């Protein structure tokens, strides 16, 4: 296969070549297949190019796709409505692509502005001087989108979407990053979706972090993450020790459980459904039987009550079965007990030994001396 070389102004109409070399101003009007393509001047690609090596030292404006094994960009490569795919892309200059850039290995230490970037291993190290080196007037950068079709920035590489296995970036501004592992510094990312290791510098601004691990994290892990952050706030002097303690208690679910009474020393036996306290009047509350072994002062049960002697009053929402009651006795159901010191009010029948007060019962009254 023959070589083709443009040193002044020329046009290539496509075909198979060993080498295409443009050192002046050239134009490719048809699809071409080559082993090596080098551009040192200016070139406009209106045909697709398939090559082993694509070396851009000048300015290339591509309107058709470029497929290569190895791409090296020292100058400016502009792809408009065209994509570039390669095994390896190294960009020391400027690369602007309104479509897709894909390669196994992408290394950018110049500047880039790309719509979508896909790869296995992507390294982006934005160099502020790369645009100046490429002789693009920085004063006209605000109009860059008119020429390039995308905005260019001197301090950051701009990529809309990056998907890769590993991303290492500094000075990257991206809307969405999806990667297995990332190492970021001085980056601005709207959404970071990472399932593996994340090393993110303090200088980064990440809008939203989505991690497969994150939503599935145990509460404990989440609390630990917050714990570290609280300790950092304290170390940095932003919060006091008391405030840090309060915040730590909060992450540990501080606070007393669902209590509606005061710390008055009374024995209370309560029932929970799940984490909800079963209260008086709720369905099923009176089906509960409370059994207490030993003497008690005053007993109040929302359900049935089984206990020994009660020194004070005994009240139950349902039946009472106990020893002697020193005070009054009230029950919604039947009552079976020993001596009763006070009045008796019972929804059902009463079976007791001695009752010193008045007896009011919905059923029969049986006093056995």
């Amino acid at each position, binding site marked *: 296969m023959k070589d083709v070389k443009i040193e002044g102004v020329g046009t290539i109409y496509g075909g198979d070549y060993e080498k295409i070399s443009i050192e002046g101003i050239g134009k490719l009007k048809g699809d071409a297949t080559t082993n090596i393509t080098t551009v040192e001047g200016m070139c406009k690609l209106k045909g697709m190019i398939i090559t082993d090596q694509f070396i851009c030292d000048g300015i290339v404006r591509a309107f058709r796709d470029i497929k290569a094994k190895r791409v090296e960009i020292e100058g400016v490569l502009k792809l408009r409505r065209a994509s570039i795919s390669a095994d390896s892309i190294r960009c020391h200059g400027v690369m602007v692509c309104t479509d897709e850039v894909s390669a196994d290995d992408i290394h950018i230490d110049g500047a880039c502005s790309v719509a979508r970037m896909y790869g296995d291993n992507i390294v982006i190290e934005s160099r502020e001087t790369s645009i100046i080196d490429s002789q693009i007037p920085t004063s006209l950068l605000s109009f860059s989108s008119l020429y390039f079709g995308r905005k260019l920035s001197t301090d950051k590489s701009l990529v809309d979407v990056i998907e890769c296995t590993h991303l290492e970036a500094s000075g990257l501004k991206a809307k969405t990053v999806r990667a297995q592992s990332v190492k970021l510094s001085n980056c601005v990312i709207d959404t970071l979706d990472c399932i593996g290791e994340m090393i993110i510098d303090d200088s980064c601004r990440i*809008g*939203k*972090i989505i991690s497969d691990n994150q939503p599935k994290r145990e509460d404990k892990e*989440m609390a630990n*993450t*917050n714990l570290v*952050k*609280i300790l950092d*706030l304290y170390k940095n002097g*932003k*919060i006091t020790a*008391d*405030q840090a303690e*309060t*915040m730590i*208690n*909060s*992450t540990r*679910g*501080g*606070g*007393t459980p*669902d*209590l*509606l*009474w*005061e710390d008055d020393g009374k024995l209370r036996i309560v029932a929970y459904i799940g984490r909800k306290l079963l*209260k008086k*009047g709720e369905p099923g509350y009176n089906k509960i039987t409370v059994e207490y072994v030993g003497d008690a002062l005053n007993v109040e049960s929302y359900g049935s009550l089984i206990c020994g002697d009660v020194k004070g009053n005994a009240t139950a929402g349902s039946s009472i079965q106990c020893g002697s009651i020193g005070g009054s006795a009230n029950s919604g159901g039947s009552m079976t007990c020993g001596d009763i010191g006070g009045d008796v009010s019972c929804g059902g029948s009463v079976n007791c030994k001695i009752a010193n007060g008045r007896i009011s019962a919905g059923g029969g009254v049986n006093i056995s001396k």
Partner: protein
Amino acid sequence: MGRNILAFGRRAISGKFGRVMCAGDISINNGDIKSLYSAGDVDIADSRIKKLRCAGDVTAINSVFEDFKGAGYVYLKGMSKADVVVAVGELEAEFLECNILRNFSKNKKTKINGLSKVIEWKGDFKAKTFENLCSFVLSCKYDFENIISSNLLTCQDELTCENLYSFDTIEAETINAENVFIVPRVNSKVDSVLGSTIRISRTFKPDQRFRSILKTVNYRSFKSNDEIMSLTSIEGDTINIEATNAELVSGMDVIIGDLCIIERVEYSNAIRISEKAIVNEVVKI
């Protein structure tokens, strides 16, 4: 103006009276009384009483009151109307409509023998302002425009009103109000807060809206201790929170203040996050 009565023992009256003072039980039927002071049980039917102070049980049927203060068991049968009702104790009403409804004495040290630590009313209540000054379970049917709570307030389901000011522990599955102000308390149990303007702050300073609310208690500015309130979600238009531990905060204008621990914040207009706060995820929607 009608005549005054000083009664001992059981009395039954009807007609127009000025001041009635009674040391025993009294029964009033078709009465129009300027002021009634009673130390016994009171039965009222189809009457109008401007001022009532009662230390015993009150049973009223289809009656109208202006200033009602009762310290015993109060049972209002039929449709009752009042300007201010203060019931220190149990209250049961078939339907009570009033401007201000309060459940305890202004003096927190007041002790009433036989009164449960936690008060629960029964019936149907409509009021412009409900002032909660004691541990209270809001399980009755209610229609309150404003709720001002300065003690434990428990609501099993959704707590709804126009303006809610909670200065103490609050327990509710959901709070749904146009304007919500909550002082964070560690024991508060709220799952979600929905509203237009939501503020959770350790500092309370009565604003114009609060000053315009009808109330009987003078609520002064204060700053509470550093307690953090935990809840699941806060959703509103304007959100300004501090000392809050929440999973989700979603709003248009969001301010995350000091001592907040927020898992995810969603905002659509503006956001401000204190350097003393922890926010794990910020999403602009």
